[in-house]
């Protein structure tokens, strides 16, 4: 919403400065977005008198002028054909920037004659394209009068942001009322004229029953014999200042009243209207060519203003081209209506058609404006266009909700925190137009017709505080419920930090990628249920909720590889989306490494990432979180986006805690990854909570006796999973056996084709005494037997 300072002062008697007004507007909730002072750019330029203009001694076309201006008398060399002794012009002093050229003037010499400053043309002042000569002011002028004042441009334009609840501030008068209530002046009285009219309107209003809910009332008036020319200069100036193009007096009047009083109007050329006009719902298939030059399809949900032949306007949004007023218009029919905000909003959205009228109607205008709006508009039409007014035409019943809201005075303190006398509260409410009945210890407040937004007691508290100033609300610490803060994070929230730190320490960089991904690529990750495909995605690349994070990580790795960083690992903590229920968004730690895991260096070649890097990442996280990693089993059924032979799922019992492996080459290729990528997905929510209670621990079991190690190499089937052998070994001789570690895999020369050798170190930890050779042999034999029994493995001799 834009307005000028002088416009505001039409409604507000005030001595306040522009700065004070602007600061207060923001504190009233009418946030100042900008102040534009058209005078600022013209500030250096003012009226000057040419005392003498004589021929330049060295140039035929130049004159050497003696110019009297605000700063004294200067010699100026001027090439304009119209410069002459005794004329008034506009002087640009040295140091000023000429708006039309952007050049800064410097004192200088032109063909040997000093020239200090310049007499300027309209084009140089950005006033018009006129550049045939310098500005020549008529009549007697005062030297030094600022150009801006001369042009009446010394009127700053203020732009404010309007929140949806402050519809009344969409009229300058509403803004003035707020400022007056806040003590920045007096609201001038508003006395709409009463125009009786001299004849009955030949056009009558009708509201069809089906339309009454959306247009409960409409008023209007017929004018005959008007002349629709150019508007007076002040009117055009104000419209231009707020960014509106003056069109014709009739149209300008409707625009002016819209912005002045938040009262949108419409004028029909009465001679282009057939019969009476009615508010009705449009028919399917009906169309209208609107004033913006576009044709809009109408339907039975759209309220139109129609004559007996066709729709002439879209209710509350825009008039039609067919019955619009032109310079030839002689007879006019004025529309002053009240439209249902929701209906206007819906229609506007459906047609994707915005207008100043729609913006106001959908926020709610003052229904009482039907009465005074007709009179205000009539007075302007008669004054600027002449002609003769009919008696008012009216149909329907003006909505008058007459609603009241109760304000318990103590609520301003108990909700707003500000202790305030009830007299002050009443004063504020009355200044805002509320009718206040102070009885029974509370205020019964009649809501002014222009404040449809007022909604309950809390809103009144807001109004009172808003005018008093939020700066009066005391800064009050929230009471502490206990002396020291207690821990507020859930175990799973604490874990996230632990996981992030662990993965970062393992060299992975943390990223946050979109929850969306490309639906086609999502197919590579098991696809997406229809319920998670966006109806209105931002683009085809972001059209579904991701079923896995790995795709986004692969895309990020590819982008980094393209920038010259191919050897990189990324991780993200965030959800994947399974379905549209609250439980369908499990949190995962997902990671992907690409390129070299170990860079090439002087000690040896680089090593590409492999599945065990990803497995190590997973195990590191699981260990940090206290998961029983010794009890995990690896199953070979990782989903299809992993390499089928280089991936697995880590299970605790039947539950999959994590999956890992090399990304399927087809998936990697679809993201343009050149090298292998090793990824993992850890289901954080499935990891059992730590069983530890508190931080106290039982004493450690430390044996007084030295542990001893034995290496055992087994020959087993080549496709035996190493994990089975380790399990079997660990299962044997519990108690004495403290650790089993695999240290060698050999399937080279000397091995049968279907066999391999797996070598383990078993650690025996005696607890009660040094082991005898016999005891050691027995323990080792148990391991060998267990391995043999469950894997068929035999000792390699």
């Amino acid at each position, binding site marked *: 919403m834009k307005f000028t300072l002088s416009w505001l002062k039409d409604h507000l008697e005030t001595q306040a400065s522009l700065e004070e007004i602007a600061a207060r507007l923001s504190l009233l909730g009418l946030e100042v977005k900008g102040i534009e002072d058209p005078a600022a750019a013209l500030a250096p330029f003012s009226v000057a008198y040419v005392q003498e203009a004589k021929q330049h001694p060295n140039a035929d076309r130049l004159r050497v002028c003696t110019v009297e201006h605000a700063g004294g008398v200067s010699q100026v060399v001027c090439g304009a054909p119209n410069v002459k002794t005794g004329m008034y012009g506009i002087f640009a002093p040295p140091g000023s920037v000429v708006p039309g050229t952007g050049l800064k003037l410097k004192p200088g010499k032109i063909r040997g004659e000093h020239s200090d400053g310049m007499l300027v043309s309209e084009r140089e002042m950005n006033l018009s394209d006129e550049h045939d000569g310098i500005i020549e002011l008529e009549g007697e002028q005062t030297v030094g009068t600022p150009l801006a004042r001369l042009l009446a441009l010394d009127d700053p334009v203020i732009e404010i942001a309007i929140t*949806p609840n402050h519809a009344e501030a969409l009229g300058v008068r509403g803004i003035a009322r707020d400022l007056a209530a806040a003590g920045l002046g007096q609201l001038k009285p508003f006395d709409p004229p009463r125009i009786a009219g001299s004849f009955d309107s030949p056009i009558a209003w009708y509201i069809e029953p089906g339309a009454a809910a959306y247009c409960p009332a409409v008023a209007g008036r017929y004018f005959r014999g008007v002349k629709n020319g150019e508007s007076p200069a002040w009117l055009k100036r104000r419209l231009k200042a707020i960014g509106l193009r003056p069109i014709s007096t009739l149209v300008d009047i409707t625009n002016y009243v819209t912005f002045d009083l938040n009262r949108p109007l419409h004028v029909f050329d009465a001679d282009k209207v057939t019969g009476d006009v009615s508010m009705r719902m449009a028919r399917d298939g009906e169309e209208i060519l609107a004033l913006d030059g576009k044709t809009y399809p109408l339907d039975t949900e759209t309220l139109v203003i129609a004559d007996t032949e066709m729709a002439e306007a879209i209710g509350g949004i825009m008039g039609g081209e067919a019955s619009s007023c032109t310079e030839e218009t002689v007879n006019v029919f004025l529309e002053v209506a009240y439209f249902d905000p929701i209906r206007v909003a819906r229609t506007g959205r459906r047609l994707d058609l915005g207008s100043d009228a729609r913006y106001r109607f959908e926020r709610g205008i003052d229904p009482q404006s039907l009465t005074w709006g007709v009179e205000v508009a009539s007075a302007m039409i008669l004054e600027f266009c002449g002609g003769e007014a009919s008696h008012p035409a009216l149909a329907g019943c003006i909505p008058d909700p007459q609603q009241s809201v109760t304000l318990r005075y103590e609520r301003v303190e108990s909700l707003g925190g500000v202790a305030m006398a009830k007299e002050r509260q009443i004063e504020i409410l009355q200044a805002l137009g509320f009718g206040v009945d102070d009885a029974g210890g509370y205020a019964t407040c009649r809501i002014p017709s222009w404040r449809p937004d007022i909604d309950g007691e809390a809103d009144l508290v807001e109004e009172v505080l808003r005018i008093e100033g939020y700066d009066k609300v005391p800064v009050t610490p929230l009471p502490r419920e206990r002396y020291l803060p207690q821990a507020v994070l*859930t175990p799973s929230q604490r874990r996230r930090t632990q996981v992030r730190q662990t993965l*970062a320490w393992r060299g992975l960089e943390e990223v946050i990628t979109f929850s969306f991904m490309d639906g086609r690529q999502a197919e590579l990750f098991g696809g997406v249920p229809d319920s998670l495909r966006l109806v209105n995605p*931002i*683009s085809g690349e972001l059209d579904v909720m991701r079923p896995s994070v790995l795709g986004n990580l692969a895309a990020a790795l590819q982008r980094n590889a393209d920038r010259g960083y191919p050897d990189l690992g990324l991780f993200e903590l965030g959800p994947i989306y399974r379905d549209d229920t609250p439980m369908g968004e499990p949190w995962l730690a997902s990671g992907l490494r690409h390129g070299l895991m170990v860079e090439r260096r002087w000690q040896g070649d680089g090593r590409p990432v492999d599945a065990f890097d990803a497995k190590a990442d997973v195990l590191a996280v699981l260990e940090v979180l206290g998961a029983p990693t010794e009890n995990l089993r690896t199953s070979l059924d990782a989903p299809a986006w992993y390499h089928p032979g280089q991936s697995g799922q880590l299970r605790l019992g039947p539950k999959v805690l994590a999956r890992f492996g090399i990304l399927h080459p087809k998936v990697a290729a679809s993201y343009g990854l050149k090298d292998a990528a090793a990824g993992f997905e850890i289901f954080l929510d499935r990891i059992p909570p730590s069983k530890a209670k508190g931080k106290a621990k039982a004493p450690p079991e430390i044996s007084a006796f030295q542990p001893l190690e034995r290496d055992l190499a087994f020959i087993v089937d080549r496709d035996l999973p190493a994990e089975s052998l380790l399990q079997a070994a660990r299962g044997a001789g519990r108690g004495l056996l403290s650790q089993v570690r695999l240290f060698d895999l050999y399937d080279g020369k000397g091995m049968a084709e279907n066999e391999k050798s797996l070598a383990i170190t078993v650690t025996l930890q005696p607890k009660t005494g040094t082991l005898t050779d016999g005891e050691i042999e027995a323990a080792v034999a148990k391991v060998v037997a267990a391995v043999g029994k469950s894997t068929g493995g035999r000792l390699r001799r």
Partner: protein
Amino acid sequence: MRDWSAEALAALEAGLLEQVAESNSSTALEAARVAILGRKGNLTAKLKGLSGLAPEQRKDAGRALNRLKQSVEAAIEARKGALADRELEKRLEAECIDVTLPPRKMNVGHLHPLPQAIEELVAIFGEMGFAWAEGPHVEDDFHNFSALNILPDHPARQEQDTFYLPPDAEGLQKVLRTHTSPVQIRTMLSQQPPIRIICPGRTFRSDHDATHSPMFHQVEALAIDEAIHMGHLKGTLVAFLRAYFGIDDLPVRFRPSYFPFTEPSAEVDVGCDRSGGRLTVGAGKDWLEILGSGMVHPRVLQNCGLDPERYQGFAFGMGIERIAMLKYGIPDLRPFFESDIRRMRHYGFLPLEVPSMVRGL
């Protein structure tokens, strides 16, 4: 050797010591030791010869010979040490490497600024007793809109650029939450006051340009009890903003505004300085809008089954990207979502500390 004279013994000692001194390696020294003190060594043989002497003579000769033996043994030990030192020196010389070569590297990754900012928020609000609440990203109309008093035709609803999911069998459409406010609703529906929560998390709006990302992060806070008023809102926010930005005298300004879910509503500005084309939070001539806030609308309380005549409280929300940009000096949204390693390493954090008030933020 039959001469037990002092001269003879002295000559023997000198010979043996010379033999030790001339041993130039530990092997040679060992050979010399065996030759002197071994079972067949010449000193051993001499000692054996004592038995053939008369008792009187044996006593003196024995004493002299023992002294001689100790002297030779000491010489051997000394020589052994010297040789070992020399050999170690040689080994060390051979083991010399170029220590200017680069060592094995351990790369440490960086933590993303957004979770870092969330940790800071949690640390500050945790001190004030606020717990961290969470909720789903795919929301229904009730939690995202209508419970928050955002009715279908309300202008506020139209301004939010909502992402929609397909209608279900009953024609109901889920949305991607446009703010984290649904978490407030879920919290009020599931627990009785007093309530103090913050809800940081992902939010979604269908807007994508230099200053908007279709996914971004918000944090909202909710405090509900019987006597919480707007002064407490101010107290909480002033304390938070000053702690977060680490500026004790940061100017904070509250302006009336409008949100469907709060009444009264306020927008909050912090002082800033824009001189020199750079935006710095702190005392300065300008104000920077940073968050929206207000007292929870009575209808929202009612929608959550709370009696607005008994309970009241405040709520506020802000963009995490925005406050992270301001605090960490990040100029635009790119470092957050583009996963560009050059920016991640620059703006990211090493995994050294979890933010906490007492350690400093």
